[in-house]
């Protein structure tokens, strides 16, 4: 046996005839930041709900802290923090009352909740709003309160389902910063996302999920090295000549060529050299961009589709 904090073997979830999670294997160690990256409908949230002990697996094996989520749900959940995809705050109550109510669910005494609430409200920068009702708060503030609430029991694992979906860029960065600090404090993070930048920023290790299966696993850098090239040349042509140009580009030496609706991507070791070769063929792209490979490219390679569609 391993000392893995979470261990899944052949984990499967079916809803009627639909298979949401199709026999996935993964292991998660203490202190890691682990991500499930994939498009909507890939089975990420279903996997998270099974880990959160609110969705019994249809088949396969799952242990959390070495315990069985169906038999030992209360004991496991006592040590988990959950930030769900949809806000589930009590909007009638105040910011602080939400923490009080939630802390009581864990059987914490009032003075402990009060002391932790002080610290957590400071941590998520909501101390000045603590007596306000939740309803009028912005999406970013609600999300920060949800994170504070999920920490009231000082969890060993924090589960975050799409933690920044629907937030504006500034609010996303605040959330990322707080999650990064938690990781520094040794909290094990498990998150799902369909944002590659989020996965790259936060995850030590991730699995790429598609249609209920795990397509690849590794650190962001590993995955990029394994499934992509160091650089990518993105070319955009006049729509009138797009297809024609795309065909001619086959003459440019590249490891891979992706023809998208609006762009052509050339996966190469040296983007500038490739661009020179493109010009050498007499092609004149409207725009050209040499960039490093990202997880988006990994996903495209593995599934033939883009992440954020």
């Amino acid at each position, binding site marked *: *046996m391993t*000392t893995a904090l979470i261990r899944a073997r052949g984990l499967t979830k079916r*809803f009627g005839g639909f298979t949401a999670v199709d026999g996935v294997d993964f292991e998660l160690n*203490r202190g890691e930041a682990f991500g499930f990256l994939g498009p909507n409908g890939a089975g990420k949230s279903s996997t998270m*709900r099974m880990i*959160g002990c*609110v*969705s*019994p697996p249809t088949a396969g094996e799952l*242990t959390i*802290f*070495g*315990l069985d989520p169906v038999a*030992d*749900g*209360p*004991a496991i*959940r*006592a040590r*988990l923090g*959950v930030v*769900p995809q*949809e*806000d*589930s*705050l*009590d*909007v*009638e*109550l105040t910011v602080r*009352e939400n923490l*009080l*109510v*939630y802390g*009581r*669910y*864990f*059987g914490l005494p009032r003075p402990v909740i009060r002391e932790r609430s002080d610290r957590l409200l400071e941590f998520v920068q909501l101390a000045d709003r603590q007596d306000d009702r939740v309803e009028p708060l912005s999406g970013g503030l609600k999300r920060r309160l949800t994170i504070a*609430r999920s920490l009231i*029991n000082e969890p060993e694992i924090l589960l975050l389902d799409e933690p920044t979906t629907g937030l504006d860029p500034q609010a996303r960065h605040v959330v990322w910063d707080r999650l990064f600090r938690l990781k520094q404090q040794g909290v094990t993070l498990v998150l799902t996302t369909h944002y590659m930048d989020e996965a790259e920023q936060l995850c030590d290790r991730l699995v790429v999920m598609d249609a209920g299966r795990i397509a690849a696993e590794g650190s962001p850098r590993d995955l990029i090295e394994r499934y992509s090239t160091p650089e990518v040349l993105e070319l955009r042509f006049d729509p009138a000549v797009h297809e024609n140009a795309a065909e001619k580009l086959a003459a440019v030496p590249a490891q891979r060529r992706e023809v998208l609706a609006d762009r052509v991507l050339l996966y190469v070791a040296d983007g500038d050299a490739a661009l020179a070769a493109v010009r050498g063929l007499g092609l004149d792209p409207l725009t050209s961009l040499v960039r490093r490979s990202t997880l988006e490219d990994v996903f495209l390679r593995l599934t033939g589709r883009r992440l954020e569609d």
Partner: protein
Amino acid sequence: MAAPAQPRGPAAGLAWPARPDPVPAWNFAVRQLRFWLTDYRRTWRGSIISTVLNPLLYLGAMGLGLGTLVDQHGTASLGRVSYLIFLAPGLLAASAMGTGVGESTYPVFGSVKWNKTYQAAVSSPLRPADLFHGHLLFVALKLTMTSAVFLAVAAMFGAITSPLAIAALPVAVLTGLAFTAPIEAWTVTRTKDTSLAVVYRFGMIPLFLFSGTFFPVTQLPVWIRPIAYLTPLWHGVALCRDLCLGIATLPSALLHVGYLLVVLGAGIIAGDRSYTRRLYV
């Protein structure tokens, strides 16, 4: 290599704990009760006003106002008591039903659909059935309070003639819960709030009018009476009335209480299942 659930120390302080002592279910239910009490702190003022005002209005208008007319036509079919005295225990049971139905519809629907606080709560150690039981405890407390106020107001009107009336308090609470549990078991499965209105329109209002609250069921056509006898409200009304008039007999009391307990028990079994199905998907 050790089994995962045994205590062992792969690294300092990181051992798997032995399986912790399970927390008793009543403790979890009480945690959810405390949530509802916190929630109630926001609304108790408005709720207290209607708790006192409703019996005042009903007993005043129907009991005294309408009652004067009724009494002039003879009260033989009422058991030779004034209409006010006949009506008060019926209204006690009927208003317990009203509270029970009210608590089992929109507050529950809001928790599972609008606010999703139930979904948040099941991410804590609490299980779906704990949420259900915690809410039933809260409703029981609220029914105790509203029914006690009702009895006090009725006594002020002179509508209470027997000390046995004090036993009508737990009967009223049981009547309310016999509605709360089964309706709540159903509400939690709903996805649209429009279906809740059906409970009021086709359930509560007919029961309110035809279960012996305002006139004896014997005034109804013979063929329809068995339907009234099947409704939990009729049992609540009948027993509350017998107790308030001091004419209750033990066999009939046991029959009424037994019937209400069966309905409550069936509702709890159904709710345990439907809460789990809705919240553990």
